[in-house]
């Protein structure tokens, strides 16, 4: 069995002081009250000693007893029992079945001679029911069979208050309030002497063994049970604690929280009331009496008196921790909570939790350790400091003294076992990660985050990057050295960036991309750098690395200019001229940038539009050097060119026409002519050069967009004219002409068209056109009539309201005042509002200009 040193046994009264060499004389009873120690002997003497406690240099307590006096009681009987009543300055002495009162100091009997006769044994009520402080309650087992008596004992008199009879002969008694706990012949009972109600506890054979009944606290007793059990029972007759297991021949028991102490022939045993375990065994031969007096435990043989000195609880707990008995230490600490001042307890308990945490930690019991660290509010740095090199060099931390554990560092703790070491590191990672955002971290966030960074870097852990891109307190110098050592250059860049050293970060990353240093964290680091520069507010840095990113890839690199965040574009943007001149060497990038300016940002500047169109054109020409566009597919670039030429109105048309001349880009030149309003020329190109009639029709439609019907009609007429102008025998243009008329009947002035058409064309041929034109004409006529009718009726309504207003007459008199200035009208001129209000003309005019005043309505 694991033991603990809870008590040490020291001698208090040596044999010589008591009886010298007289062998027949034995100790019968003891009493201790404060510093007063009384001993009763079998030869009817009472001895009075003064106990002095002192602490030896070794830290152990020692007692010296100085004899004050001794007195013979005048009988030839032994002194059976002694009890002090300090409030009365009386010692109760049981001798020869009689309880007498003597003065505590001089041991003289009191003059009145008050005594309790016929007592076999007695007990004091430590939870008295009378409120009188100058009175003690004494309960005796009477010499009368099956009788218990209760007395009030005063300074110089005694008074019986109750006599109760018991079902069997009682042998031992303890009392608490109105409750007597009695050992009867065959069982223990609880008896309420006030109500007479009794409660059986459990059977017990008094003939075989001496019963023990001991009050251990408020309403609770300790009893010797069968099989050497120490049973606990409350006044309600129930057991709230599991029994402790003594030896069969226990003769005495005492309590010194949280321990129960028992005495038998050979040993003193100590059990904890908290977990019922036996904690200590002290060899003690010929033990005779074991009793506790207000927390002081005294044990005697028949010849000498000894004191069991409890070791300080803190010492006991430390001993338990030292032998790694965490559970017991915590149980003990919690159990003694109420015996220690709250403030002191909290400090002590926290420390115990922390120590216990380190014990569990050393045994790699991480979940338990974590819980203990948490509840013990451990300074995390205590834990970090176990790991070599994790705390920043600048940290001011020193381990608490006395130390919380015995380990210098992790190497010692794991004895170099790499696997254990790795486990410990994983634990610290998860632990730091958990606490870093809690209040535990307050005050040393730098230490925690730096340690975490080091652990992550060393373990090649993904969370390293997460740590660095979110809010963190990693110390720059310490972390940088560590990251470099572990070749975490990308992460180092992030660290620099977090510390506003973007230049250093970029230099590192560029070196990685260039292959000068090796770090495979990101395979897309180039794109990352581009992205970084795109959002980088430091334009100098962008300029510095612009060439580098463009050389790597024009299309991707140009993003540093084209994808910049919108808010920056509005305020503090790059000067496009600078960018364009920079991009001169990178044609693809330049095209992308101009597109960005023209299309995305819609900059209305001629140069960009012309420049872009020109670049498109050059590209198109380069792609098709044959200059023969017929039937060729329209390339993407060509589509872009056409779209730009169509949509933009800013480029220099003449310049481009010159460029495009003779290149065979008919569609493009048609668009350009269109821009110059040279629609006939444009349409001619489409009809004659390209022979693309659909494109010609299309041209009429998009060129006239937003220009109104007459403009469009003009274009369609122009196209028709081109078709008809050709050789009449040449049927090639007849079909498109007819199709044009039939498809777009409403776009033409039918009367004009009819005059243009050759007489030879049949009505049937133009049937759709004619029908359409007719329907359109009729529709227009009817719509006009409707509009006319509506306009007339609207006019009528206005006339009606005008008539109505003019109809009533207005009389002006001196009593009529202007609503605005409240003056009478002097001239027969006024303004009348629709609501009937009259005002001066000049007032109305003022009001009209002054919008703030409440408007009464329109003038009529």
């Amino acid at each position, binding site marked *: 069995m694991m033991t603990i040193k809870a008590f040490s046994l020291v001698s208090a009264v040596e044999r010589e002081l008591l009886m010298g060499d007289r062998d027949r004389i034995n100790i019968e009873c003891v009493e201790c009250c404060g510093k007063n120690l009384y001993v009763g002997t079998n030869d009817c003497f009472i001895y009075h000693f003064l106990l002095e406690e002192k602490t030896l240099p070794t830290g152990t307590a020692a007692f010296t007893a100085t004899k004050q006096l001794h007195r013979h009681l005048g009988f030839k009987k032994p002194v059976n029992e002694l009890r002090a009543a300090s409030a009365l300055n009386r010692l109760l002495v049981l001798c020869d079945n009689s309880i007498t009162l003597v003065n505590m100091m001089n041991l003289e009997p009191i003059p009145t001679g008050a005594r309790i006769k016929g007592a076999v044994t007695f007990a004091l009520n430590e939870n008295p029911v009378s409120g009188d402080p100058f009175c003690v309650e004494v309960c005796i087992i009477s010499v009368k069979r099956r009788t218990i008596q209760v007395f009030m004992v005063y300074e110089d008199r005694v008074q019986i208050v109750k006599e109760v009879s018991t079902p069997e002969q009682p042998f031992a008694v303890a009392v608490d309030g*109105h409750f007597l706990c009695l050992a009867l012949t065959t069982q223990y009972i609880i008896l309420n002497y006030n109500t007479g109600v009794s409660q059986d506890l*459990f059977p017990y054979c008094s003939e075989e063994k001496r019963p023990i009944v001991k009050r251990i606290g408020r309403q609770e007793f300790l009893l010797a049970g069968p099989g050497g*059990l120490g049973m606990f029972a409350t006044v309600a007759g*129930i057991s709230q604690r*599991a029994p402790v297991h003594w030896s069969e021949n226990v003769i005495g028991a005492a309590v010194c929280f949280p321990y129960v102490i028992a005495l038998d022939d050979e040993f003193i045993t100590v059990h904890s009331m908290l977990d019922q375990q036996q904690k200590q065994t002290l060899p003690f031969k010929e033990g005779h009496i074991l009793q506790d007096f207000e927390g002081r435990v005294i044990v005697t043989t028949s010849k000498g008196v000894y004191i069991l000195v409890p070791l300080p609880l803190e010492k006991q707990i430390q001993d338990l921790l030292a032998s790694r008995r965490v559970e017991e230490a915590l149980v003990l600490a919690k159990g003694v909570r109420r015996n220690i001042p709250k403030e002191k307890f909290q400090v002590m308990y926290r420390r115990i939790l922390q120590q216990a945490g380190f014990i569990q930690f050393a045994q790699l019991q991480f979940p338990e350790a974590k819980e203990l660290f948490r509840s013990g509010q451990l300074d995390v740095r205590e834990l970090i400091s176990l790991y070599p090199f994790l705390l920043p060099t600048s940290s001011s931390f020193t381990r608490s003294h006395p130390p919380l554990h015995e380990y210098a560092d992790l190497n010692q703790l794991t004895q170099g076992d790499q696997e254990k070491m790795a486990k410990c590191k994983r634990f610290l990672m998860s632990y730091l990660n958990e606490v870093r955002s809690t209040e535990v971290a307050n005050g040393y966030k730098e230490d925690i985050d730096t340690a975490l960074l080091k652990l992550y870097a060393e373990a090649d852990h993904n969370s390293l990057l997460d740590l660095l891109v979110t809010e963190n307190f990693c110390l720059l110098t310490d972390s940088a050295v560590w990251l470099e050592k572990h070749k975490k250059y990308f992460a180092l860049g992030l660290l620099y960036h977090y510390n506003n050293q973007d230049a250093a970060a970029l230099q590192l990353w560029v070196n990685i991309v260039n292959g000068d240093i090796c770090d495979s964290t990101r395979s897309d680091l180039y794109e990352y750098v581009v992205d970084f520069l795109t959002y980088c507010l430091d334009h100098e840095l962008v300029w510095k690395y612009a060439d580098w990113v463009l050389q790597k890839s024009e299309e991707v690199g140009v993003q540093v200019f084209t994808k910049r965040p919108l808010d920056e574009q509005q305020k503090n943007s790059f000067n496009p001229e600078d960018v364009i001149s920079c991009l001169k060497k990178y044609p693809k990038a330049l095209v992308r940038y101009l597109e960005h300016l023209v299309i995305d940002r819609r900059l209305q500047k001629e140069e960009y539009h012309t420049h872009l169109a020109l670049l498109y054109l050059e590209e198109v020409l380069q792609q098709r050097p044959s200059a023969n566009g017929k039937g060729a597919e329209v390339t993407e670039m060509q589509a872009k060119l056409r779209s730009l030429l169509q949509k933009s109105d800013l480029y220099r048309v003449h310049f481009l026409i010159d460029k495009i001349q003779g290149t065979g880009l008919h569609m493009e030149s048609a668009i350009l002519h269109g821009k110059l309003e040279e629609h006939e020329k444009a349409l001619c190109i489409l009809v004659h050069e390209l022979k693309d009639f659909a494109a010609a029709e299309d041209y009429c439609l998009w060129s006239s967009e937003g220009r109104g019907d007459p403009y469009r009609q003009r274009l369609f007429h122009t196209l028709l004219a081109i078709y008809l102008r050709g050789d009449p025998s040449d049927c090639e243009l007849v079909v498109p002409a007819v199709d044009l008329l039939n498809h777009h009947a409403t776009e033409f002035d039918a009367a004009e068209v009819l005059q243009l058409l050759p007489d030879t064309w049949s009505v049937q041929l133009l049937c759709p056109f004619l029908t359409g034109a007719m329907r359109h004409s009729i529709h227009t006529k009817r719509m006009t009539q409707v509009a006319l009718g509506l306009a007339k009726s609207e006019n009528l309504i206005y006339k009606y309201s005008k008539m109505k207003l003019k109809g009533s007459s207005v009389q002006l008199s001196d009593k009529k005042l202007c609503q605005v200035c409240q003056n009478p009208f002097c001239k027969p001129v006024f303004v009348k509002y629709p609501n009937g209000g009259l005002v001066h003309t000049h007032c109305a005019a003022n009001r009209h200009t002054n919008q703030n005043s409440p408007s009464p309505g329109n003038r009529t």
Partner: protein
Amino acid sequence: MRKPDVKIVLLGDMNVGKTSLLHRYMERRFQDTVSTVGGAFYLKQWRSYNISIWDTAGREQFHGLGSMYCRGAGAIILTYDVNHLQSLVELEDRFLGLTDTANTDCLFAIVGNKLDLAEEGAAEDQENEQDSSREAGGSCVPAKVPKQVKLEDAVALYKKILKYRMLDEKDVPAAEKMCFETSAKTGYNVDYLFETLFDMVVPMILRQRAEGPPQTVVISDYEKQPKQMKSGCCA
């Protein structure tokens, strides 16, 4: 120490497996136990309630303590060994008398343990096989024997208990719900047993709380009683 809200007591002859049952439930494992001395005590947190569970000693020597342990109990688990008829008989002869001190509304559960050692039995067959193959090398594999005590016998005992306690069958849980067969070794039915009981004692706790704390009348008691004495004198 937390104050328990309700008490549950395990009773039964020695060697039927009371400690093992409790150990299986609290510690989640089965291990050899020594004969219990006196009694042991566990505190179980169930939802927001503290339930104390007392393991008693089955030995005759400690029989006298049973009454005290049962005092104020909210539930009593009477345990027997399904392979040992006498252990069921003992429950009626020896242990039922101890329950007189329990609460009037005390619940009774009758539990036949060591089902793993019985030949018949449906649900735990597979586990048994695994167990026996694992222990095949061991020297003391208990031989399978036909189950001696049927569940109906336990049901019959339950009804006798109701008669003894003068309870109406309508007012208490049905016998079928309160008779269990378990194996502390395999864990079969053990959680079910305890948790069924816990759920049943919770309403008792609530009822007790509603009626007011029963054992905290101390101070007012002391004040009242002398007065009563006086009035007695005057009359």
